[in-house]
């Protein structure tokens, strides 16, 4: 799968309260959650995102609460992929489980806001078209690939049980 989109840039330790504040957790609707995505860090984020855009952040993206509403909110407002230096563990598994593409890229910092980036998830390559640079992302473990290939944890588990 190839994803091409514009970069929205954030720093280190973006927490799940930043991604979607607890005051909006009395719904599970992706659209409603998406409308408030990232609003603590960038009030107009949801309005500026166009479907297919890419969030780029530093280390420990998604730290804090276990709320799966966080990856759902990102998906809900049209974010196609998150690239980060590293991910907090519950966010990581939530994204894998629900099928929000994520890429761990130590050089994430080099990507700039507004850059046009093309990512080949299968190859694990991140190409910054604006800067004309290509990076190789950390490959997923084989086990994680199985879940991704199955289309998420529910399908994977169904296959496993049957």
């Amino acid at each position, binding site marked *: 799968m190839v994803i091409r989109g514009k970069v929205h840039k954030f720093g280190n*330790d973006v927490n799940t309260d930043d991604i979607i504040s*607890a005051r909006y*957790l009395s719904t599970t609707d992706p659209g409603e959650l998406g409308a408030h995505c990232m609003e603590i860090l960038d009030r107009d984020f949801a309005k500026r995102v166009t479907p297919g855009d890419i969030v780029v952040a530093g280390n420990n993206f998604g730290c804090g609460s276990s709320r799966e509403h966080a990856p759902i909110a990102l998906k809900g407002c049209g974010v196609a992929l998150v690239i980060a230096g590293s991910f907090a*563990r519950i966010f990581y598994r939530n994204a894998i489980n*629900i099928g929000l593409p994520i890429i761990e890229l130590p050089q994430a910092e080099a990507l700039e806001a507004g850059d046009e980036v093309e990512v080949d998830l299968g190859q694990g390559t991140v190409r910054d078209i604006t800067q004309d640079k290509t990076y190789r992302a950390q490959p997923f473990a084989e086990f994680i690939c199985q879940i991704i290939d199955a289309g998420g944890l*529910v399908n994977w588990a*169904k296959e*496993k049980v049957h």
Partner: protein
Amino acid sequence: MGQTITQKILARHTGEKTVEPGTFVWVKVDFTLGNDVTAPLAIDTFEKAGARRVFDKKKIALIPDHFTPAKDIQSAQQAKRLKEFADKHQIVHYYEVGRLGIEHALLPQMGLVGPADLVIGADSHTCTYGALGAFSTGVGSTDLAVAWMTGRVWLRVPESMKFVFKGKRPRWVSGKDFILTVIGAIGVEGARYRAMEFTGEAIRRLPMDDRLAMCNMAIEAGGKSGIIEPDEVTAAFVSKTRRLTASGIKEWDALKSDKDAAYVGIKEYDVTKWEPVVALPHLPSNIKPVGKVGKVRIDQVVIGSCANGRISDLRIAAKVLKGRKVAGRVRLLVIPATQEVYLQAVREGLVETFVRAGGVVSTPTCGPCLGGHMGILAEGEACLATTNRNFRGRMGAKGSFVYLANPAVAAASAVTGRITHPAAVAKK
């Protein structure tokens, strides 16, 4: 190579003799947990997957503790979904307002989790039960739904970090100060993906409520779990509510890390000369000793949460507050973590102390900790809380401030209206 307690517990649940860090396992769970925020999503997933039956109706807790008593119609709808799911699947451990408590205080108190168990919960503070010698970790709603379907969860076996606490704990210093100091030292991602093992003579002498507060905050350092080897303190706590482990206490000897177990880092602390610490906005790692915080005025104090809403937390707060008054412009909110803690606080006269001091005592709820309800902050307001997170806007307005500390510091600060060492108030 020897095994850590974490490896040993995980190995037992895979049926293998040993498991190595970095490998992925698909393991049986002993207990699962969801709340009114995370369980509705899990129910959606469970039903959409076409699942008809849960793996074990006795191994599922549904605890509507976050936005209850329901703060608005949407929250009421979410809590109702838990009740309906519990009815449909005859879930044993569903509790209504009036009988519940904050999940991570309630489950240990009821004996639903214990040594050698493997527990997952759709709540990041599920790591709390490591204090009892369980492997216990927070997961998402899809993980929870799949565990309801299959009785299993996927895990990457974590590397372990060891934190050794030596010396004698001074008065006013608590488990909360131990863990805040660790987070301050290693940072909010210092233990990412890892198990944090707490040990040493100061841990052996640490009461269970303090141990629970410590393991509760492993996630704030990015940890997958916190864990303390079971000992006499664990036995005394657990034996009140359940058989120690399925096969009895002797098995605990096997629940210790081997001497030659591998750790990716070992840190040692001597607590003898410590003083309480405070985490300043907006990260739990932003630590200063209470004496070096400077003059910080506060508008609200919250004593409660899954970190510090247990009876010993209320006792020490009441000790500081007894015969004193909350400062004129400050709100003091005391939130016993469970109904049992509440009742015990009534029996011991602690509730009277809080009310006479000018505080309010609330029904158990997560409420203000996550900015849900029951104590939301306005722009520019500051709160000193015994909770576990102080992210920007966590307790309310984007421009509000949350400081984290132990219950004695919280009580002393309520009296003076600024962040204060308990010794400065209590000796007057």
